[in-house]
């Protein structure tokens, strides 16, 4: 097991190096001078200020030197400070991460609540009308972009029914859990739609395979109820790949809520990233991107390791 962990960690570090290098390269390749973006009209006014900012940002250094310096700071947790807002990037992330994480968590839970019954039903009624209907519905959910779902949800639940707020975020610390959930439920639902579709397809296909196993036949021959067989004997072994995909998608959602956060004006990481891009706040862009990428890679690695713990065959392989 120790060998497995060591191997995974080496891969993790290599991946993170590649991710940081790509992130840094891409922001460095953006057209235009970041100092123009920072100072605007002042960039033509005071050469000394321009020179100082260029020095602070290391823009006059060769690319690789800049990368190594930046990486050194990043490794020690110093992601820099926004030139636009003066805020530390790490504190920007720490303030917004709980919001995005809550959205992602709620989306996963809501997706599972729908996906498991749909997947189980589809597998149990494979080829029948119930399966066709749910499959069609899942296909639609998979095809519709989540921002379209979001717009529809706002129109229905905010504008038409007036049940839920259309935008912004009530914090648990200020407004309590109920008020918080009122602002979280629509964006989380919009995010959940695609997840639900992915999860239910996975559950269905895994269940179909499991239901053909001999031990399921044995359970049937013992006269166990269908419900018992499905939930106790079939669902659990079918959940292994679901657990994996949940972990991976949770990591992806941490960086994948950009559009929904912007649509609903949710002060999460994605919303801040979009603002930073619009303001050309390169230090913030780099910091958030690296954080998202790191979170994704780390979560994937943890899921990989858990998978190995759960399934001895993988460990041995």
């Amino acid at each position, binding site marked *: 097991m120790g060998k497995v962990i060591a191997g995974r960690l080496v891969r993790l570090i290599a991946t993170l190096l590649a991710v940081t290098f790509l992130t840094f390269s891409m922001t460095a390749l953006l057209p235009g*001078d970041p100092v123009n973006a920072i100072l*605007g009209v*002042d960039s033509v006014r005071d050469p000394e200020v321009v020179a100082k900012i260029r020095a602070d940002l290391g823009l006059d250094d060769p690319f690789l030197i800049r990368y190594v310096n930046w990486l050194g700071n990043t490794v020690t947790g110093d992601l820099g400070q926004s030139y636009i807002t003066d805020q530390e990037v790490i504190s920007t992330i720490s303030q917004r991460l709980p919001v995005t994480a809550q959205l992602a968590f709620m989306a996963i839970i809501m997706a599972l609540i729908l996906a498991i019954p749909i997947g189980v039903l589809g597998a149990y009624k494979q080829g029948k009308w119930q399966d066709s209907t749910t499959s069609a519905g899942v296909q639609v959910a998979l095809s519709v972009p989540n921002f379209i779902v979001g717009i529809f949800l706002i129109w229905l639940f905010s504008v038409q029914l007036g049940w839920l*707020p*259309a*935008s*912004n975020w009530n914090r648990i610390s200020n407004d309590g859990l109920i008020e918080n959930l009122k602002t979280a439920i629509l964006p989380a639902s919009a995010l959940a739609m695609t997840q639900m579709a992915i999860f239910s397809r996975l559950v269905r296909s895994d269940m179909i395979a499991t239901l053909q196993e001999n031990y399921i036949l044995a359970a049937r021959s013992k006269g166990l109820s269908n419900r018992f067989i499905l939930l106790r004997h079939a669902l659990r072994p079918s959940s292994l790949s679901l657990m994996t995909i949940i972990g991976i998608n949770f990591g992806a959602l941490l960086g994948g809520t950009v559009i929904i956060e912007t*649509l609903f004006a949710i*002060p999460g990481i994605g919303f801040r990233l979009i603002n930073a891009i619009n303001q050309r706040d390169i230090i913030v862009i780099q910091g958030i991107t690296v954080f998202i990428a790191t979170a994704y890679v780390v979560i994937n690695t943890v899921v990989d390791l858990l998978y190995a713990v759960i399934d001895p065959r993988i460990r041995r392989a």
Partner: protein
Amino acid sequence: MGETVMRRKGLYRSVAFLAIAGLIAGACGGDDDSAPADTPSEEAEAPADEPAEEPAVEAGDVAEGDVDTAIEEEESTVAYGGSISVGLEAEATGLRPWEDTCSSPCYNMMISVFDKLIEMDVNGNYVPYLAESLTSNEDFTVWTMTLRGDVTFHNGVELTAQSIADMFPIQQAGAAGSSAIAAANLVSVEATGDLEVTYTLSEGGSAFPATLSRAPVGFVFEPAAAAADSEGFSMAPVGTGPFVIDSRDLDNETTFVRNDSYWATDPDGNALPYLDSISFRPIPDEGTRLDALLSGTVNAMQTLRQGTIRDARNARDEDGADITLYEFQGNNVGGGMYNVLVPPFDDVRVRRALTHMNSQEQVIEALGGTGISLPGTQWFSPDSPWWSEKVAEAWPKFDFEGGVAILTEYVNDPERSDGKAVGESIDVELSCPPDPTLIASMQVVEQLYTASGLVNVTMTNYDQQTHIGIALGGENGFVGNHQQHCWRWSSDDDPSVNLTPALAPPTAEIAEAIGLPGVVSPLNFSNWFSPTAFQAAVAATKTDDFATRYGLYESIMLEFADQVPVYYSGHTATAIGTESNVLGLNSWHVPSGELGIGFPNAEGRWAEVFISS
């Protein structure tokens, strides 16, 4: 004339070299800060009292705009109490007037916590606000301001002339303040009495009151608090304004509560503000912001998009939404520029032809502004006192066949400037920021140009900051490599704010050639230079006589119509929408009791807003 130029050399240098602020703001983004200005002198007189005849014709093309909410006294009985939330199009970068570039959303917040020294009244005059009076010497180099007495900052510190003097070094060191100070040629601010402040300018400027009416210099903040913790000040600003900061949750909600010791009253002597609290929420998506208003998630919202005004009107008129729209047709006009130092745009025939071939009516339709935005012919909208009918008539309007004829003449000219063979189509790179409506409008223009058979169009989109950087052209002596470049022109500030730097020599070579070495303005984005236009722009800052200034700016606009360095795609209509029981936005007052300017650029003044019972 040469003599005149020489005599005014120092003047030109300072104006062109130093008065470089603001334009970018009003330029591409359209809604940024920058100091406004207008006729100054003793207590700022009124351009609107002067000519300002009723326009006999609509500006521009055949498309008609219909955006105007009257500024008038509120007839409902005002009521105290209640809270409202306002949806803004973006978060304020910061709330430090001297440091943070302030756009329309930011102004809504800053004006709640800070007072301006000077405000604009309903007629467009600059009038005292936190100041009690403002006078100048004859050549406008020394301005003496008297502050109101018995005003305290939110932290209990008394406002004195020394407060204003102590603000100055902070403003000088600030990113936003320093450029505004340079633009105004402001060299010193001294407390010359308990409440008397003396501003000294290196070059006289009749539009100086405008500087005192906008964010970097005009908003009054508590200098000791600002000096003690600049970063913290952004989260907890201290001013003298009608509301006091209560909480600031960046990118989510900023809440201000009533300043119980606010100095201002309404004309009946009632204490202000009326509301208990007001909160501002950034909601960048236009549709969501409108939905937030329609669903009651917010009580008011701003928009600078004509498409959103259209949708809000539809919601009100067709769906029966119980909302009020406070609409404003400002001077800010969309469109763009031709880089006249890049062939074929160095030939006025090309610029004129392309402008004739550009249908503002169709572009406005693509932008969703039919019936909302007026086509542009100049840097002033028809309801501006600076608007000129003569210019409106002179501007090259949509005439596709006429444009094709002019372009054909260029294309068949053996001496054509782009070096191509006779008969070959010209190449045009048309560039706008990647906003969906701007892309739609680009496509309209591209189709029109292409239909002529004489233009090869390449369309490019860069993010806004890059778009601005390309036009600045820092890499090649501020000439830039842009060709036809989307831009916004003008604002409701004094014309000098935007026009003077835009007319100064764009390159060192041009400055040298006209005997003004070193006088270079990177903010002349089209690179078009006319000695007469520049001279007129400078002369307009040396007088406070409205008729004289009007004539000078009209002459500049007429040159624009003749030389076409820029083109237009319609004035920028803006609006603040509110629930119908939220009143008072169009009926706030300046201390003299006159009505204020209203809500230009979707910037509300919230002290006299109340919730009707």
